[in-house]
């Protein structure tokens, strides 16, 4: 069994950001909600029943072949900070982090798979992959669902499908989502148009940490909103197609910015570089917004490609809980802002100044990138 300290030091597969379309799609997630047939849902079950449910489910999840080298812990045995770290890595939900006795989380070493026990439903199984890999993420989570179903009696109705605590999840119990980095659409003020168009076709667009959170760092989550009346594969195909269109629009927006507003773009990148290199206090939101512009700079060739990983890592490492876990102490907001600025300064020491001339030449690259996406 893995310890929490090793969860911290292993960044997780999706944070390495090598998946398809990784310039725009940070990660793909698919989660399935399942419940046991003969027990009240976690929100209605009394403490003793929740514990009984946990005792029934947890060993069976731990026995899965995919969970051979896993981290498994009761929620009440995790500190507030550790829970926050898991939220920042999207391995547990904010709702799950608020749970106490009777809830647990089990996840694999690669952090591609996490299972929340007694969240809103008895089981919330999630697979997370880097880049656009919704199909692969679904395959993995579908496999463990089938394996668990041999040992557990799931609540299932022939007409309504899998029964969930909230009627919005009934049917497939599936939520597929992708985290997109869309600085081009934001800078060219096309993002609201895209969000509106996407909402019209029954998909949801949200901020960094899901429902009700604001968009920071030009990061957006897009997911299916309905779960009944459509097959899992069809939902995923529909979502993937929409995401591919958004990727195309994002690349187009970047090209247009390069051609029509190169000064604005250079100014943004230069300012982001300047502030991140020299600031001594940096709030989380400001850091994300500026890092987003540096990431765009790497995509466009203003910075060398081999710095991608270290910049991508900063998106997570500068989040409040990761900062505190890293420094081994509890910090107040002001202290966090100092430490955040320091970590960013240190890492940016290795990043050369933006090279605007290379950026112009890279504009050809944008279309090759797009051609390869049509495969």
């Amino acid at each position, binding site marked *: 069994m893995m310890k929490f300290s090793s969860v911290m030091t292993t960044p997780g597969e999706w944070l390495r950001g090598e998946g398809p379309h990784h310039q725009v799609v940070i990660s793909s997630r698919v989660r399935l909600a399942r419940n046991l047939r003969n027990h009240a849902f976690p929100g*209605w079950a009394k403490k003793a029943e929740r514990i009984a449910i946990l005792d029934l489910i947890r060993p069976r999840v731990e026995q899965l072949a995919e969970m051979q080298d896993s981290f498994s812990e009761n929620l009440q045995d995790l500190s507030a900070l550790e829970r926050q770290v898991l939220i920042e890595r999207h391995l547990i939900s904010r709702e799950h982090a608020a749970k106490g006795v009777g809830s647990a989380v089990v996840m694999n070493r690669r952090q591609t798979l996490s299972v929340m026990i007694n969240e809103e439903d008895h089981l919330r199984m999630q697979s997370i992959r880097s880049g656009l890999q919704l199909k692969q993420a679904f395959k993995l989570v579908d496999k463990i669902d089938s394996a668990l179903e041999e040992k557990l009696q799931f609540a299932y109705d022939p007409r*309504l499908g899998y029964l969930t605590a909230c009627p919005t999840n009934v049917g497939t119990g599936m939520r597929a989502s992708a985290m997109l980095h869309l600085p081009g659409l934001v800078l060219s003020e096309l993002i609201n148009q895209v969000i509106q168009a996407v909402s019209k076709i029954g998909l949801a667009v949200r901020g960094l940490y899901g429902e009700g959170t604001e968009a920071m760092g030009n990061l957006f989550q897009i997911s299916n909103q309905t779960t009944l*009346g459509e097959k899992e594969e069809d939902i995923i195909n529909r979502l993937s197609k929409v995401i591919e269109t958004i990727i195309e629009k994002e690349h187009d927006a970047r090209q247009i910015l390069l051609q029509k507003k190169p000064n604005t773009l250079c100014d943004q990148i230069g300012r982001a570089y300047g502030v991140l290199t020299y600031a001594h206090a940096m709030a989380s939101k400001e850091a994300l917004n500026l890092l987003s512009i540096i990431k765009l700079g790497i995509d466009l060739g203003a910075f060398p490609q081999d710095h991608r990983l270290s910049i991508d890592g900063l998106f997570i490492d500068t989040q409040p809980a990761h900062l505190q876990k890293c420094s081994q102490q509890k910090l107040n907001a002001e202290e966090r802002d100092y430490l955040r600025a320091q970590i960013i300064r240190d890492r940016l020491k290795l990043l050369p100044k933006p090279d605007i001339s290379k950026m112009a030449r890279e504009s050809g690259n944008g279309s090759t990138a797009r051609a390869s996406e049509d495969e």
Partner: protein
Amino acid sequence: MQKVNLCDACSKEKGVEDPKSFALADLLLGIGASEEIEKSTLTQKCPVCGFSQADFKKTGRLGCAACYTTFAEGLHTLLKAMHKGTEHVGKLPQRAHRTIELSHRMRTLNENLQKAVAEENYETAASLRDQIKQLESELSNP
């Protein structure tokens, strides 16, 4: 009795959707009866877990799997508005799938048995009876 005249917009705002049925309940069962009826549907409880519709109004979550049967009527409208369809077309749990398959096979065997008996083909009937027995035990221990 207090009479209130409401315009169309106000009646909707106050939740008086169908003033006729509203008045009828009051007329037949006494003033306040319609409110009682409303209350009784809100206090209708799931026989399995004791969850009520009022609880659902409060939390937006259901109590257990059986609540989907208990509150089927109200949920149907809700699900229809919420989702693409009203019927699941996705994944089937293998175990449930197997049960459906087995019961289908059981029906065929029973039909064949009746035919065999009618044709006085007792050898076939005996073999079919054995098969049915085995299937029955499989069905009772999934």
